[in-house]
């Protein structure tokens, strides 16, 4: 039932996804740091870039080179004044990356997918949609009574393989529901598997002493079941 390897893998993926923004933030931070120290220290590069205006002093040149890096900082949505030292934005830009994280990623419960239920309660004709809604609810709730309800519905509508399926699921949730065992066995007969039905009933009778199961077994054995 549990595929541990697969779960481990998905967990790792989830963790990576969860920490990715932090890591990206860190990388951005480092890049910025390098860019800033680079622009400050390598005077030769700055000289090359200011070829267009060779008369400019090295001091002026360094301030022109600083501007693009400030734009980069602004793209992180910090509201820093233009002429602040590059050190301050470095610390600040870590926060906006961190902020939206924890809740949004972690607690993403599936949305209540009950959009159809409204139409179900308003329009309760025995359409296909209604039982599908119920089946979805059953999947969600694992309510044995609902499983039985669905199994009975399908049996009554002649969908014996579906009836068999839901009775089986219901029995696995609760093996104490007599009617579910009965529907299970009756569906088996309808599906042409009388032998299996008999075996199931015999098994269930030893377990429960069910009168109803015994009489059903009787009719199947006498061939009077219809």
């Amino acid at each position, binding site marked *: 039932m*549990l595929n*541990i390897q697969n779960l481990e893998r*998905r967990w790792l993926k*989830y963790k990576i996804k969860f920490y990715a923004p932090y890591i990206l933030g860190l990388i951005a931070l480092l890049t910025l740091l390098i860019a800033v120290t680079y622009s400050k220290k390598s005077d030769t590069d700055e000289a090359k870039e200011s070829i267009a205006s060779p008369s400019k002093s090295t001091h002026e040149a360094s301030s022109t080179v600083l501007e693009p890096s400030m734009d980069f900082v602004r793209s992180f949505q910090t509201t820093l004044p233009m002429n602040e030292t590059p050190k301050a934005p470095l610390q600040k830009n870590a926060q906006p990356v961190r902020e939206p994280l924890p809740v949004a990623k972690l607690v993403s419960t599936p949305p*209540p997918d009950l959009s159809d239920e*409204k139409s*179900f309660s308003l329009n*309760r004709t025995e359409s296909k949609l209604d039982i599908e809604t119920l089946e979805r609810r059953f999947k969600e709730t*694992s309510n044995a009574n609902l499983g039985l*309800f669905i199994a009975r519905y399908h049996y009554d509508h002649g969908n014996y393989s579906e009836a068999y399926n839901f009775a089986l699921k219901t029995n696995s949730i609760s093996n104490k529901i007599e009617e579910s065992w009965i529907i299970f066995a009756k569906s088996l007969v309808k599906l042409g598997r009388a032998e299996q039905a008999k075996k199931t009933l015999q098994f269930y009778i030893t377990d429960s002493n069910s009168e109803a199961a015994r009489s059903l077994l009787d009719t199947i054995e006498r061939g009077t079941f219809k």
Partner: protein
Amino acid sequence: MEHSLFSKPRDLFLDVVNPKDYVQIDSIAHIYQSLKSSVQKPLKMILLFGRPGTGKSMLLHKLHHDLSKHQKVFMFDIPIVDEDDFLRVLAERIFAYSPRETMTLTRFLEIAEAVSYTDVPIVLLDEAQLYSSSLMEKIRLISDARVIKFVITLHKTDKEEIIAKEHFQTRIWESIELHNATAEELKIYIQKKLLKANCFDVANMFNDKNIKLVASLTKGNFRETNKLLFSLFSLYCWYEENNPALIQYNALKSKWIEMAAIHTGLIHA
């Protein structure tokens, strides 16, 4: 696998409703008390509503269990969505009347009059969001005639809230809303469940950090919590059998809680 330390706690968290497993939490006990006293008041219908998995069915079953010792109370946990069937089954179960003819509302009320119990029988209807509005109207008329006292549960989603308002927020309804548990309540819920079943060692494995993680994943929803813990303990069963060295017995592993959450779909990964 069966004498595993974790198979019993795992099965405790199967998502089933049995009044014997009812766990008392202050806020729920409070609601339950007011529910019990409302039931004894005439005329008003009682509506228990709240999001899926907040414990409405549990409360209804508990009420049924407790009331049935003293009075006539009938539980309908599988909705009978067909209107004729509904009245017929009601007449059959409550008034022991099984007619051949189709059951109209008038006929039903006649039968009820004829039988006339001294105490008004109580009917508990679970999953009322599955009933049509015209059937709900009939239920209201039966209640108005003081023939039956109804307690119904309805699970609301954002969309259904509108219907809930239209149908039920009138003065004939006494509505009681159930909510998800707080982290503190959830802790009590989990511990009480484990302790009741003598799973002391496992109960001790839950520390506050574990509880916080569980509560934040499930938002305090009982059903989600059950599903999460069921798969968590299934995981523990697996490790116990296949790699016991990995199990720490002093605390639950956050990683495994998250893996269980991935398995149940609380975390998308």
